[in-house]
């Protein structure tokens, strides 16, 4: 079971080696002459004003929270989708579909609510 992941980890290892080689290769081959002007964060040629670690719109948090809800929903749908044929073979396909529909509707209500309340307005 776990053995089938062996090749996957081989490829992962190759990818890590490659990415590491890029980083190290550039560090070895390229010059390194840092100075203050060079290291200034880019702000269209001006001296940077304030800090970049600032507060940002709460909307991003909102999107992230809604995402969690729906992502978990999608994750719950995977095992159902993969085994739906077996439910059909057992003759309970429509019942299972009904239950899943209820599940989806409950979350869809949340989506409708969120849209209507303007939680996804970015204007």
């Amino acid at each position, binding site marked *: 079971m776990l053995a089938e992941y062996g090749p996957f980890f081989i490829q992962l290892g190759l990818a890590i080696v490659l990415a590491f080689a890029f980083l190290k290769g550039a560090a070895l081959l390229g010059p390194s002459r840092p100075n203050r002007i060079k290291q200034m964060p880019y702000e269209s040629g001006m001296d940077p004003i304030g800090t970049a670690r600032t507060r940002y719109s709460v909307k991003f948090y909102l999107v992230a929270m809604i995402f969690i809800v729906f992502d978990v929903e999608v994750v719950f749908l995977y095992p159902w989708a993969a085994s739906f044929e077996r439910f059909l073979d*057992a003759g309970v396909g429509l019942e299972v579909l009904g239950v899943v529909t209820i599940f989806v509707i409950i979350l869809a209500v949340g989506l*409708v609510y969120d849209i209507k309340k303007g939680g996804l307005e970015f204007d």
Partner: protein
Amino acid sequence: MDLTQSFSSLGADIIVSAPLVLTMVMGLVIVVLDAFRRNHVATPWIAALTLAFGLVMEITRIGAASGTAYYDLLRVGGMAAYVNALIFGSGLLTVILARPYLESIGHHIGEVYALILFASTGMIVLGTANSLITIFVGFETMSICLYILTGLVRTNQGATESALKYFLLGAFATGFLLYGIALMYGATGTMYLHEMQSAVGDHQTMFRSGVGLLLVGFLFKVSAVPFHMWTPDVYQGAPTPLVGYMSTASKSAAFASLILVLYLALPSTQWIGVVAVIALLTMVIGNVIALAQTNVKRMLAYSSIAHAGYILVGLAAGSPEGYSGALFYLLVYTVMNIGAFGVIALLEWDGTQGSEQSLDSLSGIGYKKPLLAWSMVFFMFGLAGFPPLGGFIGKVAVFGPAIHSGLTWLAIVGVLTSAVSAYYYLRVLVVFFMKESNPDVATDNITFSVPGMSAAVIVLCVIMLIVLGIVPTFLDVTASFFDGNMLATLP
């Protein structure tokens, strides 16, 4: 696994748990309705009708034999029906009280009713849970809704603070609960309460640690000392009628669930000592600190801590009589507390959910608002435990079994602290009726208009309190839940 059997009982389960399912569905309906027609006038009515339907349906099933639904995850009928009726009743009275109140503070928003319905769903799941998983699901559903309701008035700093405090501490308590569940499951290999005791085997240490952590979660929810710190702050900051709901319905659910855990999963007497000590601390600390309170809502918050202590005395007795007494006390407590918080809500003048309202500001109110003040007389005497009101019978019902179980010292402390509590309860009445109205506090611009529905709820609570005090049959009803067939009906 035979898949064809998976759905054979689903239809029957849905019918058996119709109030629960309906509450959740109507909550969703309100959410959708509110999305399209913001703060529609029908919203509170939908919630009230749903809760009323659930209340009627559960009352008719109190006498029915108890059973289980959804693969033994939930209990139905009997004690479950009684607890559900308590939750529905509390929710119904709260909805009626909350509508004019929220309108007056300018936060009449449709989601409140959806949240009350969802919270009720969670409480029912918690109060009728027969498995640790359902306990957790109900616990979380209830708590999250209550966190939001606490911070409803988000422009108010105090409300926001109390909501955040409630959320952080509550999340912490949930962590304890979950960790306890994990350890109990690890020790027994089952999530079902009635299978736990026989499945513990030689993992006693792990099981006991799990139960300890589980109890922390529960004791937090019922605001027992030493997990009571959140209670005064939350009660002070939250909208007053909703505080009544939080303090009664969530306590009913958590205590019912705790009784089931103690009765089904821990029938041995080894936990009695722990519960008794907690009960002692809760009664003493709750009552003593309440003496020093000048804010009405904080005073009632400490009073509700003290009452959690009285109920814990019934649990500490560890006998069916004790459990049934505790269940009866929950009913009395619901009636008294909804009424008391309802009166305070109607007498509010400062526009910040009474968070800064001192008792003195209500001086002489008894002559301006006789109906509310006289109702308050009943509630205060009831809370203090004077005969012939329900509060007295309730205290007899929890202290009596404690004496039978050999916890005489606990009962004595209970009676003594009740006597102490009479001081701060009666002080309310002294202020109401025997003090001149305070010129320092701007009570002149008070526009207490008492809505008819709210007044009806208050009067209903008074009548219930009297009936519970003089008609003893209610105690027989709660006693009948423990007639020995409670386990027999389980597969």
